[in-house]
């Protein structure tokens, strides 16, 4: 089994807001992130796929194919977008990095055969990242 990791960057805006809470509760839990005018990050996404090395090509996955899948399934929708307002998955859930990692996993998982998705790592900033293994 070989693991291959592809890195990509996207920039997006978001805010944290639970509509079932009062403004005060939102402010208390989410702090600066509750500002409804939004703020943004340069996200770094690392997608790790695992699989066997193809005997003919020597690839675990065709890198150009992986790049095009990442663009089509994630980056085209996320880059330079407002996550709350423009990405349908976040119309009803808070676009935290935790939820973003799961959404990205779900968007990618079905498209990577014969390799399989091993890990989605998402950096919100250099000192904070989340990992999701599909568990």
């Amino acid at each position, binding site marked *: 089994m070989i693991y291959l990791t592809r890195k990509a960057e996207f920039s997006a805006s978001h805010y944290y807001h639970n509509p079932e*809470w009062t403004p005060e509760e939102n402010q208390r839990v989410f702090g600066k992130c509750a500002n409804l005018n939004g703020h943004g990050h340069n996200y770094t996404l690392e997608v790790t796929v695992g699989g066997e090395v193809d005997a003919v090509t020597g690839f675990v996955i065709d890198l150009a194919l992986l790049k095009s899948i990442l663009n089509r399934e994630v980056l085209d929708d996320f880059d330079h977008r407002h996550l709350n307002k423009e990405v349908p998955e976040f119309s009803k859930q808070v676009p*935290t990095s935790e939820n973003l990692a*799961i959404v990205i996993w779900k968007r990618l998982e079905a498209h990577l055969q014969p390799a399989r998705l091993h890990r989605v790592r998402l950096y919100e900033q250099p*000192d904070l990242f989340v990992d*999701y293994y599909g568990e």
Partner: protein
Amino acid sequence: MKIYLTRRYLFAAAHRLHSSALSEAANRETYGKCNNPHGHGHNYFLEVTVSGPIVPETGMVCDLGALDAAVSRHVLDRFDHQNLNQLQEFAELVPTTENLTVCIQQILSRTPLPAHLEGIRIEETGNNSFEYSGAQAPRH
């Protein structure tokens, strides 16, 4: 549904690698520049990984402010701008980053944290890093 969250912290500390079980010559041979009697220092980057389910109402694994406060109080306040050799933990233990990693993992495993502690990683320099997750099997 399990998410791993890693937060990165910085502390600066001095140390000298010297083992009382070795001769002066063996210390110099083993530790090289790190055996300099006057000590030296590093900017250590500490990565703390916690895990758990996402709380539906917040979308978060845990309150980052609470994690930061716990790590600051129990680790950073204790180690930042200190000489590790002078600390009680290293009275009889060489303050290699291996030992430092185990030491900080043990401190955090005793500390109430807002999510489950998976393990820690310490970068001593840009080229050396150490990971420890207690008795658990490696995550990857």
